[in-house]
């Protein structure tokens, strides 16, 4: 049980948190033929776009309503209308996902109302899906924006219908990489199920080279799939922040759901296997029995290196939950834990204290930790503290392959454990002749301890 504290200071230093609107935008990027659009000033989009380009090393479709001083005061209706018409004309997407920003929320634009008027005015847009989600920059963090966007998508677009045998929904949380999602799809399919994954970044942001240029996303959940999520047999929400979306879908279309907080770790994967066995009526395929055994072996091999280690970790709640529990379960101590936003998971974490704060807070508490785990912005801190650094989460701009880092499933957990244990092996301290000499006393007090004085 952890003590969850909101850090009391006025100035955030070295932010861990990113804003909710770009979380929503990334969720929209997991839809096929979509144009994510921020209702704000052009800079809101530019910053998010650069961040995603640097993380995924991909072209990123993202637009803006380009609000300025005057249009903000007068209200953004014309800009929203112009943006939709321009995007419709230039990029011909099937869906436009609009997220608000701090700017337009402060003014108080009623975008849902605008959309009704725009729809009446432009019958030519009848085929185009437009989904709006309210995500003020000054409330919550990245994963909150992602969660709100997914909930709004199913609320607006899922349609109840007769159940389609074998079809299941997977609501994927923002902690999952495209590589994770690929892994998850394989697992569901191995049980003979037809998963609809929402959002599906594995189709759109996995770094494939298409045959032609597309101004919108290419790959991801299609509009048709999104609509028939209401006809699925059940929903698996991965990540606590996906619970709302699953609940919305249940309320609207009567699809029952299970929330799995994470798919990292032996227990978590076992829960998934039991669930899928129960739902499909099929035994777990041999390859997963084998993979489970490999993970168990990896845990046996790795525990020598992870036991007793002090970990400093900074991550969004749902990513933190998976990796934190894995490490605590391997005998490591979560000595410094910082996250971005409130979550019911936080107080259940196996740590003394969980801070909702920034990387300065983490740095202050990470002084004698053995490993730092956070996104790429931890690089300066890791250097200052001179401790090993595992990059995890978004943004990861100073390494390649962020999209393909897999931590879900038996196999993903196994590789993550090996990665962490290998860091500790590489950092292992070579014994020195004076390691066991008593250096507690001051050098001058004991003639035989001259070497201690030199320390």
């Amino acid at each position, binding site marked *: 049980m952890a003590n969850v504290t909101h850090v009391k*200071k*006025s*100035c*955030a*230093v*070295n*932010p861990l*948190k*990113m*804003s909710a609107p*770009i979380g929503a935008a990334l969720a929209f990027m997991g839809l096929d033929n979509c144009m994510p*659009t921020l209702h*704000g*000033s*052009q*800079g*809101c*989009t*530019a*910053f*998010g*776009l*650069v*961040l995603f*380009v*640097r993380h995924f090393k*991909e*072209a990123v479709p993202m*637009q*803006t*309503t*380009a*609000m*300025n001083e005057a249009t*903000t005061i007068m209200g953004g209706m014309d800009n*929203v209308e*112009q*943006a*939709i*018409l*321009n*995007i419709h004309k*230039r990029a011909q997407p099937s869906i436009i996902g609009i997220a608000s*920003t*701090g*700017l337009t929320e*402060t003014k108080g634009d009623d975008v849902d109302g605008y959309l009704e008027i725009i729809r009446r005015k432009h019958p030519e847009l009848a085929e185009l899906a437009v989904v709006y989600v309210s995500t*003020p*920059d*000054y*409330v919550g*963090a990245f994963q909150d924006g992602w969660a709100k966007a997914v909930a709004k998508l199913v609320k607006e677009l899922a349609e109840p219908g007769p159940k389609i045998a074998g079809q299941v929904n997977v609501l994927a949380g923002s902690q999952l990489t495209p590589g994770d999602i690929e892994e998850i799809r394989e697992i569901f399919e191995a049980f003979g199920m037809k998963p609809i994954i929402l959002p599906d970044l594995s189709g759109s942001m996995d770094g494939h*080279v*298409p045959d032609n*240029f597309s*101004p919108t996303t290419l790959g991801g959940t299609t509009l048709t799939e999104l609509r028939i999520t209401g006809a699925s047999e059940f929903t698996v929400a991965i990540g606590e922040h996906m619970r709302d979306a699953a609940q919305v879908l249940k309320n609207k279309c009567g699809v029952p759901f299970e929330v799995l907080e994470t798919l990292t770790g032996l227990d978590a994967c076992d829960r998934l296997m039991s669930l899928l066995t129960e739902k499909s009526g099929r035994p777990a395929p041999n390859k997963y029995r084998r993979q489970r055994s490999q993970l168990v072996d990896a845990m046996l091999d790795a525990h020598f290196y992870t036991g007793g280690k002090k970990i400093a970790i900074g991550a969004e709640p749902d990513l933190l939950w998976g990796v934190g529990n894995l490490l605590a379960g391997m005998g490591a101590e979560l000595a410094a834990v910082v996250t971005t936003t409130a979550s019911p998971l936080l107080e259940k974490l196996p740590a003394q204290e969980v801070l909702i704060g*920034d990387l300065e807070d983490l740095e202050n508490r990470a002084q004698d930790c053995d490993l730092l785990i956070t996104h790429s*912005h931890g690089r*300066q801190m890791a250097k200052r503290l001179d401790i090993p650094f595992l990059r995890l989460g978004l943004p990861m*701009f100073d390494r390649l392959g962020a999209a393909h880092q897999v931590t879900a499933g038996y196999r993903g957990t196994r590789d993550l454990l090996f990665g962490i244990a290998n860091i500790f092996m590489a950092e292992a301290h070579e014994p020195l002749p004076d390691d066991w000499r008593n250096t507690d006393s001051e050098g001058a007090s004991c003639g035989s301890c001259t070497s201690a004085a030199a320390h």
Partner: protein
Amino acid sequence: MDALSKKVQEVFDEPACGKNQAKSEKDRKKGCTKQLAPGAAAGGCAFDGAKIALQPITDVAHLVHGPIACEGNSWDNRGAKSSGSRLYRTGFTTDINELDVVYGGEKRLFKSVKEIIEKYDPPAIFVYQTCVTALIGDDIEAVCKAATAKFGKPVIPVNAPGFVGNKNLGNKLAGEALLDYVIGTEEPEYTTPYDINIIGEYNLAGELWQVKPLLDEMGVRILSCISGDAKYKEVACSHRARAAMMVCSKAMINIARKMEERYSIPYFEGSFYGISDMSDSLRNIARLLVEKGAPADLMDRTEAIIKREEAAFWQAMEPYKERLKGVKVLLITGGVKSWSVVSALQEVGMEIVGTSVKKSTLEDKQKIKELMGEDAHMIDDMTPREMYKMLKDAQADIMLSGGRSQFVALKAKMPWLDINQERHHAYAGYSGMVTLVREIDKALYNPMWEQVRKPAPWDTPVGAASTPRLTADRALEGTPTAHPLAA
């Protein structure tokens, strides 16, 4: 009209701006900000521009007053290098919440300044205004004034909220903040007849350090670079320079002109990109200093250095001339003066098949025409789809552009080189030009291209061979040790 709108008007009315000079009285009044098309716009905001312009000042705390988006989504992502303090790479933001939006964020801002001074004790703090805090009426000028009085340390308001305009406007508003609050507020320990300012150089990838050794050799001292690798005190003392070079005219022309007005510091507009431009810049620095009373032998020293460096450059180019002859380059850039790179690449034998002129002045366009001929392919605004097509159809062999369009080229399986602010290589001065040419060569002749352009086995009809493209052909013609300078 409030203070901010007045500043924006003033900046738009810049008399020394080449674009402005070419405009009618009426057009000049309208200002430079084109109304952006919603749903078809790209690029950063004024806040982004202000941050780009000032963040290279290394020893101050850059505090962003606004919601998490403005700093949280963008911090530590620019390539300006420092020879000393690392404080400029620390992200500071008030990260305002809902209550601040309702009750105002001024108190939080004031307390943030206090916390920063207590923990980091920088020589100054720059406070950046953003859209939300501007909209709710937080008066950052007043807070900064109060904080300066209370803590006895300069706390400088940078009033360029994102929604007033684009990046370029933000650059200029940042310049105004320096003029109003920093420049001329301190005195240097000593001065020399060889003191210059370099204005509009950000030391991206360490480019200032490619030029500085030559200035050192000339005996010229950079009193202040605004703002690459700058310390607060240097900028505050910059009014004592004898002459100035303005590097990126669009960004900080207001600083150069107003410093000439206020402190009689003559300036010229120059570039460190390209051989002839680099040489001209060194000459102009020497000339201005001599005109202001420096001993005349500075000119001779400078000419000797130029002669030596140019000769060394051409010698370094020898191995590339054959390999790069006729290579077709598509140049999409705003950050680097198009024509100065155009002339440099042409000097090595490459052919420029198109260049962007979005941010160029009429005079720039004239220069490009002189260089590329009357039918020069000048691109005002190219959509990614058009770029993709041009590359896919092999109308160009390589694209030089900013990171934003990187994947347009790579997905077309065509070589690409980053020449904008996030780039990792330094391309300034004589040595920088050698690097640029070497990087182009490396990109073009990488054997990877041939592999990735091959069709997948399931796409190849039995017996058919793939058709290699230009670069692959030439790479094969070369000796087995493909790279001439590999050793």
